[in-house]
C-alpha cells in the first residue's frame, strides 16, 4: 500500500488514523508497564494488562460505532443528553461514592460509571446537533440562548462535583463549536477576553498590569474592526474593565491564606510541599531524561516511586524520564498527526453536524493533551485530566475510543452516501 493510497480521502476507512491510535496505545502500554511493573504480581493483575483489556474493549465499541448512521446520532443526541444530566444529578445528590474523594462515580457493582465522562460525549452530540441547525452570530444575541442553556446545566453539575478540569472541557468544546458555527476568531477572542482579564489583573504586580493593558488594547482594536452593534461593543468593553477591577478588588478582600490557595493553584511551584511537590518531582523526572532519555526501565525517579500518580495523570513524566526529548517529541508528533487525520474528516461533506462533531471530538483530545502535558512540565495548574491513550484508566480509555468510533463512523458514513 503506497503512502498516496493511504492518504486517499475517498477511502471509507482511514487506516493511517487507526494506525496512529494503535501506536499511541502501544506507547501507553509500554509506559504503564514501566511505571507499575513489580515482579511479584501475576500478569493478569498488572496495570498494563488491565489497560490492554480496556483498549480491546474500546476497539470493539469503536468498531460497532462505525456502522451507526449519522441520522441515528442526530436522533440520539437529545435523549442521551437528558440521560447524562440525570446521571450527573444522581451522582451529585444521591449515590456519590464519598470514600473515593469527590463524588464522581456511580457504583454499579460490576463496574463503576463516571457520568462526567459520559456527559462529555453526550454534550458533544447535543451541542453539535443544535449548532448544526441554528448557527450563532454576535449580531443575533438570541442565537446564544439555547446553546447557553445546553452548556450551563452539565457544566454546573460537573463543576459542583467538584471537577473543574472536566468542566473546562465543556467550555473548550463550546467555543470551538461556536467557531465552526458562524463566529470568527475575533468573536471567540472577545468572548474569552473577560476571563483573561480576571487572570491578568488579580495580582497587582507590574508585569500583569502591562499584560492587562495590552489585552484591553487588543479588545478595543477587535471591537473597532468588528463593528458590532453599539450595545455589544459597550458590553464587551465594560465586561473586560469590570472583570479587571472587580478581580483585583475581590483579590484584595481575600484572606492571605485564600490568596495563597489561588496562587498555589495557578502556580504550583509556589507551594513546593503541597501540589508543587508533585510538579517538582515531575519536572525533575522529565528534565533528567535529557535528550535521549535514561532508557526503558531505568527511570530512577519513577522507579523510586517519587511520583504519586505516575501511571495515571503523570504518565508523561515517565515518558520524559525514560525516552527524553526525542521520545516526547515523537509522542507530540503522533498526537499532531492524529489531530490532523481527525480534523480532516470534516472536509468530506458540507454537513455542519459532521463538522461540529469532528471538531468537538478533536478538541476534547486536544484539550486533554495540552492541559495534561502542561501540568507535568509546570506550565499549568495540577488538575486531574489524563493523557489520551497513554494514561492508565478504564473510563477515560472508553471515552477516547467512543470518540475515535465517532470519527471513524462519520468518515465511513459520508463515503457510503
Amino acid at each position, binding site marked *: 500500500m503506497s503512502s498516496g493510497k493511504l492518504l486517499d480521502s475517498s477511502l471509507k476507512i482511514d487506516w493511517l488514523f487507526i494506525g496512529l491510535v494503535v501506536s499511541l496505545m502501544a506507547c501507553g502500554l509500554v509506559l504503564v508497564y514501566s511505571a507499575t511493573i513489580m515482579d511479584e504480581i501475576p500478569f493478569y493483575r498488572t496495570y498494563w494488562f488491565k489497560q490492554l483489556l480496556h483498549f480491546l474493549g474500546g476497539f470493539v465499541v469503536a468498531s460497532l460505532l462505525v456502522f451507526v448512521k449519522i441520522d441515528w446520532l442526530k436522533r440520539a443526541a437529545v435523549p442521551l443528553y437528558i440521560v447524562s444530566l440525570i446521571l450527573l444529578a444522581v451522582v451529585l445528590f444521591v449515590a456519590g461514592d464519598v470514600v473515593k474523594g469527590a463524588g464522581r462515580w456511580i457504583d454499579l457493582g460490576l463496574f463503576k460509571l463516571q457520568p462526567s465522562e459520559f456527559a462529555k460525549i453526550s454534550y458533544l452530540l447535543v451541542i453539535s446537533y443544535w449548532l448544526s441547525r441554528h448557527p450563532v452570530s454576535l449580531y443575533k444575541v438570541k442565537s446564544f440562548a439555547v446553546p447557553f442553556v445546553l452548556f450551563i446545566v452539565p457544566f454546573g453539575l460537573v463543576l459542583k462535583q467538584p471537577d473543574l478540569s472536566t468542566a473546562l472541557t465543556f467550555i473548550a468544546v463550546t467555543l470551538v463549536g461556536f467557531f465552526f458555527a458562524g463566529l470568527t476568531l475575533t468573536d471567540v477572542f472577545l468572548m474569552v477576553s473577560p476571563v483573561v482579564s480576571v487572570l491578568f489583573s488579580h495580582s497587582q504586580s507590574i508585569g500583569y498590569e502591562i499584560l492587562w493593558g495590552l489585552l484591553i488594547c487588543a479588545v478595543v482594536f477587535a471591537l473597532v474592526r468588528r463593528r458590532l452593534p453599539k450595545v455589544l461593543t459597550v458590553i464587551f468593553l465594560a465586561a473586560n474593565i469590570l472583570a479587571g477591577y472587580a478581580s483585583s478588588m475581590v483579590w484584595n478582600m481575600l484572606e492571605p491564606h485564600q490568596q495563597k490557595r489561588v496562587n498555589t493553584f495557578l502556580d504550583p511551584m509556589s507551594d513546593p510541599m503541597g501540589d508543587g511537590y508533585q510538579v517538582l518531582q515531575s519536572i525533575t523526572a522529565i528534565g533528567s*531524561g535529557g535528550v535521549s532519555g535514561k532508557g526503558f526501565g531505568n527511570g530512577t525517579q519513577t522507579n523510586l516511586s517519587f511520583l504519586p500518580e505516575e501511571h495515571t495523570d503523570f504518565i508523561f513524566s515517565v515518558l520524559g524520564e525514560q525516552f527524553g*526529548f526525542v521520545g516526547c517529541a515523537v509522542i507530540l508528533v503522533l498526537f499532531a498527526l492524529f489531530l490532523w487525520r481527525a480534523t480532516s474528516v470534516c472536509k468530506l461533506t458540507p454537513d455542519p453536524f459532521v463538522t461540529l462533531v469532528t471538531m468537538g471530538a478533536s478538541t476534547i483530545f486536544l484539550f486533554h493533551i*495540552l492541559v495534561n502535558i502542561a501540568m507535568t512540565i509546570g506550565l499549568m495548574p495540577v488538575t486531574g485530566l489524563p493523557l489520551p491513550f497513554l494514561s492508565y484508566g478504564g473510563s477515560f480509555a472508553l471515552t477516547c475510543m467512543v470518540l475515535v468510533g465517532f470519527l471513524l463512523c462519520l468518515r465511513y458514513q459520508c463515503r457510503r452516501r
Partner: protein
Amino acid sequence: MRSSSTDNEILQRKNWSVLVYMVGVVVLFGVLLIRLFVLQYVHYDENMRRSDNNRLRRVDLVADRGFIYDRNGEVLVRNRPSYQIALQAGSLPRSKSGKDSVFRNLLKIRNKSGERMFDSLAVDTAFQRSLWIKNRPIRFYEDASQEQVAVVEEHSSELPGVVTVIESRREYPYGTLASHVLGYTSEITEDQLKLPEYEGYTQGDRVGQKGLEQAYDKDFRGKDGVKLVEVNASGREVGLFQGVDGQDPVPGLSLVTTIDLKLQKAAEAAIPDSARGALVAIDPRNGEILAMVSSPRLDPNIFSLKRRERNKGWAQVALDSLRPLTNRAISGTYPPASVFKLVTAGAGLESGLLSENKYYPKPCSGGYQYGNRYQKCWGYHGNLNVVNALRLSCDVFFYQAGLDIDMERINEFGRRFGLGEELLGVDIPGERAGWLPDSVSFNKRNKRNGWQWARGLILNLSIGQGQIVTPLQQAVLVGALATNKGVYRPHFMKELRDAQGNVVRRYEPEIIRPGKMKAETHRVLMNAMDSVVNHPGGTGKRGALPGIKVGAKTGSGEWKRGEKTHAWYAAVAPLENPEIAVAVIMEAAGGGGSVSAPIAKKVLMAYFNLEDSH
C-alpha cells in the same frame, strides 16, 4: 437541495477554519516542545544531579503531643522516644532476589540470648505491604531498645531499605494513677476516621482515647511539619534539600488540670485495687475536680507498648468481669441511698411542710405499715426530729416525710443541686445521666415490663432507693448544699499552655444549676450533716477529723437481694466554709459509715495536711 457551488463555498470556508485550528495546534505543541527543550537540554545537568546523585524525600515531622500537669505543675503525662524499625519501600532493592536477601539478613539477626530478633511473619507482612505503600516507612518492629537499634544500624550495609524511625509515645509516670481521667492514646480506629469530629486525621495517627487524652486531643496534637531531605542510594538521609523550606512542627498545647497529685495519691492509696468503687473530690466553690478514682484501675502505659504486649494487656482489661475500663466516677450509676435523705429533708424544709421541730405521728419501731405492706427500718429509733432522723438515717421518718412532701417537690430540690437526667457536662467523655423518677417518667421507663406507678413507691424513693446517680453527682450535690451558692460545672481543665509556657486558654467557672435554698433550710441541713459526723451515734462518726468540722451523710444502697449494700459516703469540709466535697462509693462492701467514711477521711486528711494518728 443546496446547489453544489454553495456546498463548495461552505467546504472552502471550512477548510480555512480547520487550517486555522491546526495552526493553533502546532503553535501550542511548539510551546510545549520549547518548554521540554529547556527542561531536558538547558537545565539537564541540574535536573540530572537532583534525580541521580541525590534523591528527594518528603519526611513528615510529627508534632510533639502536649503534656498533662496537675494543678501544681507536676507532670502526669509526658512523652518518651520510641524507636521503630521499618521498611522504606523506595530504598529496597528492586529485584526479588535482592529483597529476599534483605529478608534473610533481617531474620539472621539474633539478640543476646540467641533468639531471632524479628518475627518472620511480621517482616513478611511488611514486605508485602511495601508493594503498595511507597511514601512512608512500614513498621515491623515497634518500640525497639537502644541495643536493638544499634544492632540494626551495624548491619545497615546488608539491609538497604531498613530504617529506624523515632516516634514519640505517651508515658504515664504514675502508672495506674488517675488512669480513667487521663485516658490513653492509640492509633485512630476505622470507625473514628469516619466521624466528622475526626476530619483532617489520617490513618496511622495516634489519637487520645477516653479521658482527657480524648477530650483535649485537638489541643494536644499541635501541627505536624514537613521537611524535604536528600537521601543516598540506601535510603539514608544525607541532609536537607537545599532551596526549599520545610515547615517546622508546632508542638501541641499542654493541659494544666485541676487534679491535686497529693490528693489523688492519697485517694488511690485509700482504695485497694481489688475493690470496686469510685471516689470524687471536688472544690464546690468553682467546680474544680481535685481527685477522681475509679477502681479497678488500668495502666495506660500498656497502650504505648509494642503490639504483642499491648494486645495481651488489652485483652486482660477488656475481658475482665470487673470492667476496669469503665470510669465508675462518671459512668457508674447507683441508687443514691440514704444520702438522698438530705434532698427529701431539704425539699420539706424549703416548702414549709417540714420544720426543725416537726415530729411525725408514727415513731420508728423498726418499720412502717403502709396499706398492707410493712416497710422496715434498719433500726429502732423512736420519735425523732429531722436533724436526728438524718443523724441516725432513720427510714421511718423519711417514709412519712416523703408521703407528705411528694416527689415533685423532692425532685425539683434535687435537680436544683445537680441531680437528675441532665448531664453535668464534665470535660471528659463518658458521663452518664442520673434519673429522678416521678409518676410520668416511671411509667414511661417501665412500659416494657408493665410496672405502674403507685404511691407506695414514694416510700422507697424518699430514702434514695430507685433513683439513679453517679458518684460525681453525689459530690456535686453535697458540695452545693454546703455552699448554697450555686452548682458549678465540674471540670478538669484549669488552663492550656503552649510550649513556651504561655497561657493560651483558661477555664472560666460556670454555674449550671441554681443551687440555692432558704437560709433556714441551709442552717438545718448543715446542723444535720454536722451531727452525722460529730454527734454521738451519728452514722458517719468514722469520718470525723481533728480540728476541722466535717459534715457528711452516709448511705447503704440496696441493689441485689442477698448481696452486701453499696457503701456511700458524701462529705464536705470545713462545714462552715466549704473548700472540698468528697463522695465515695464502694460497691457491695457494706455500710457507708463503716467502709467509705474512713476512705474519705484519708483524702480529707491529705487535703488539710493532717497526720494520721493511727
